[in-house]
């Protein structure tokens, strides 16, 4: 039984498995970006290509981020990562023990430095190295007396830390996938809403109530004269059981309330509810009337029926326009350019004001894993920087006869050149 466990562990902790899994995952990731990313593989079935459908269904290529197969690969990868880290653990502990031991020295693997300091400078050198954070100890090996200076004793931990942080990220992602949900809420200006659309399967939504109510006081789309939007702002009020909160949500400036994140996603002009203030005159301009009318509503002017059939937000870069059915003729009126109009209709339409209520669409995410993922990523970054800069280095000074310096690691080299320059300067002074 133990043997079986050992063998399974061996398989899971093998680098070959890592490489195979990595290649599979890379293929999945890259191929999936070229395929249409919807749950639309059903269309292949409709197109009478059942084989392709089955292939995509089993491999989950069109929807890899929600497919069982891919989750399986990722789980295997995680186990592999854990097993590999566990496998390395004893070696890391061993190396730290060795680094900590004040008597450990391996002269064979160390380089002899060309700089040989004067015998009197022994105290100076240890002082300098002590100030630079080295641990100093003394020992004897093969009949020679050595002063051992070490730094970065716990450096091997940083490798472990890198992999632990990757595991923390994966844990966070798992929490996100298991307990998180996404959806959107649609708010109409001036109305209160507590139902939102929650995504159940990709692209499919159900209507669910929130534990509190939302009111959209106003939505503003701030634009420049060129028509470019510079800001979308939803001014909202939240009504909770015994709490009322008024706040604004903007792009890149979301609201987090009771762990749920609300992000300004998009907006829609609710043209069906638009109200137009028009001033209508006859050709000569003698008879004039002001009317307020909604889209598809009817009014009367000079005995003929008048109806707004269409509303355009921007026509050929000349701004808002409406299409009016007046008797048998059609009039297109531009808000900013009233002079361009159909002359045969016998009337002139001036648009004084257009009030279009907006619907603001907020994206809703509840994702309890986010903080864990960010923590893991931050830790990953720190430990990667540690891997580069926090390295074990050792300088050994043989004190028998002449002083001789042995070292290991590139960084120790720079410390030694510093000592060389300092002691040379010191000896010149003397």
């Amino acid at each position, binding site marked *: 039984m133990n043997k079986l466990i050992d063998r399974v562990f061996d398989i899971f902790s093998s*680098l070959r498995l*890592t*490489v195979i899994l*990595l290649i599979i*995952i*890379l293929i999945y*990731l*890259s191929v*999936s*970006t*070229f*395929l*249409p*990313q919807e749950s639309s593989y059903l269309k292949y079935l409709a197109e009478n290509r059942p084989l392709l459908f089955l292939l995509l269904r089993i491999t989950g290529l069109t929807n890899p*981020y929600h497919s069982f197969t891919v989750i399986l690969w990722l789980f295997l990868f995680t186990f592999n990562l854990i097993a590999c880290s566990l496998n390395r653990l004893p070696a890391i502990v061993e190396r730290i023990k060795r680094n900590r031991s004040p008597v450990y020295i391996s002269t064979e693997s160390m380089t002899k430095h060309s700089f040989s300091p004067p015998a009197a400078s022994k105290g100076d050198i240890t002082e300098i190295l002590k100030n630079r954070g080295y641990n100093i100890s003394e020992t004897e090996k093969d009949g020679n007396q050595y002063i051992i200076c070490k730094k970065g004793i716990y450096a091997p931990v940083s490798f472990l830390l890198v992999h632990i942080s990757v595991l923390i990220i994966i844990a966070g*992602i798992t929490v996100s996938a298991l307990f998180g949900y*996404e959806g959107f809420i649609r708010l109409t200006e001036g109305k209160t809403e507590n139902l939102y659309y929650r995504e159940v399967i990709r692209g499919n939504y159900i209507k669910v109530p929130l534990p509190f109510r939302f009111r959209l006081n106003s939505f503003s789309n*701030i*634009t*420049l*004269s*060129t028509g*470019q*939007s*510079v*800001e*979308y702002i939803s001014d909202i009020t939240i009504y909770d059981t015994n709490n009322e909160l008024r706040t604004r949500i*903007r*792009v*890149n*400036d*979301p609201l987090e309330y009771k762990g749920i*994140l*609300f*992000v300004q*996603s*998009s*907006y*829609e*002009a609710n043209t069906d509810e638009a109200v137009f203030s028009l001033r209508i005159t006859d050709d000569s301009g003698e008879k004039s009337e002001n009317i307020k009318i909604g889209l598809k509503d009817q009014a009367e002017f000079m005995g003929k029926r008048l109806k707004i059939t269409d509303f*355009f*937000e*921007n*026509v*050929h*870069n000349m701004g808002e326009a409406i299409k009016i059915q007046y008797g048998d003729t059609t009039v297109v009126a531009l808000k900013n350019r009233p002079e361009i109009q159909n002359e045969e209709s016998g009337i002139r339409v001036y648009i004084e004001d257009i009030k279009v209520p907006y619907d603001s669409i907020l*994206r*809703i*995410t509840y*994702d309890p894993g*986010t903080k864990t*993922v*960010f923590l893991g*990523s*931050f830790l*990953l*970054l720190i430990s*990667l*920087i540690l891997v*580069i800069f926090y390295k074990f280095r050792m300088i050994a000074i043989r004190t028998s006869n002449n002083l001789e310096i042995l070292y290991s690691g590139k960084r120790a080299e720079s410390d030694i050149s510093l000592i060389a320059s300092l002691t040379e300067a010191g000896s010149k002074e003397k």
Partner: protein
Amino acid sequence: MISSNIFFASFILYFIAFFLYIIGLSKENKEYMQGFRFSVIAFIVHTAGLFVRYYEAGIVELKAFEESTGHIATGSERIRIMLSHPPFTNLYESMIFVLWGIAIVYIVINRRFHLNITGLLGSALIVIGMGLSNLLPDKSITPLIPALKSWWLHLHVITASLAYGAFLIAAVVALLYLIRENISPDRIFTVFLFTTSVLVLMMVSFNPLQYGATLLGVAENGKLRPAVISVILDNQTNPLSIVLKRPSPLIGMVSLITIIFSLAGGTILVIKKLPARTAGLVSSAILLIYLISLLLSVSSQDIGTDKRELADLINYSLSSAGINPSDITNMNFNILPPYRINLSSFPYQFSIILMLFLVSLFFLYLTIRYDSFINRLPLSPVLDTISYRTILFAFPMMTFVILTGAVWAHFAWGRYWGWDPKETWSLITWLVYAFYLHSRHTLRWSGKRAAIIAVIGFAVVIFTYIGVNLGLTGSGLHVYGSK
């Protein structure tokens, strides 16, 4: 725009540096530093240009603020607005900024390892890149769209261009390693010819006869701006901007011929064991013909005045953007016809071809003066170490890029990761380099294998940077400027 002129000045300085490096090639003295000095000057001018552009963008942002709110910003708010628009928010600026990252890395490596050859190749790349960015149709500064108004943008892009620059230089050094290790230029050249074919294929969107689309521009006050239509789809409110394109069967045909010749050339090279010199000559000649025919086929012509032609044009542009005309509820022309095509109509095609042309010239040079070139390179273990250490520094930076991207996505879109093509490809890049580092540490792969991974890794980086924006993958949220 003053900044564009400063960038042009730095372009000339890089060019001078490039020439000095070439002169340095023929000198035996390893301490030759003129190219390096001019690179530093060019880099300082380049940096100054970026600051000026930052300032200019700040002014644009300030004006937009005053127009939209109606009051004048003062004090700390003024400073906040001035700093809010960094100089890397459209394709033109992004290219200039990535080149800046490349410049830092090559200058540091040139200085630290006395490696003039990275200076030579680095400055050559920057000269090409700057020349190409100058061809891009849209160089103007417009106020930031709401989605880009985030401080995370600054951190995200600055580290990204440094990381990309480092990956590039690491790949260049790895290539030098491969050359140094006596892998015959013939073999590298064959690989190059095959890569050419793939790149050209990519460029014509894997459909050479129909595509090879050219972007259309419109002349305004003597300057060319991209011709754009904005469409609103059913069940959506935000208008989509679509740059007008025209199918160019001629370019498609010539591309196809180039591909066939490159493939044939590569195959003959393998079978007949022809010297790379002959093949280099043939292939650079083909590429030159291609360049000329591209130039001829776009000698300024106006199109789109005819209604049917215009309708065809719009249909084609919509279908290549993946939009079904029946879904459209509203369509606007931001700029009215006639539209015009010229050189800047296909910056990508042009840049790839130009790059290939120069690379084939380099191989030509390499085969003629192979020995003297090899002798001037540092020893191969040195090249190996340089490549490795550059990647070691770039890897945490890439991690930081993904981390800041995730935090930003959390605030902007409500989720830290959404499998957007750019996100996915940055993860792929990260995994490839993670594999590089692991294979070095645990499998003890170094030298040839490591160099090959470094080169492949950079191909992935290129795809992440440009391929996704070219629309080779599904549409994503990072597509800016190019579509």
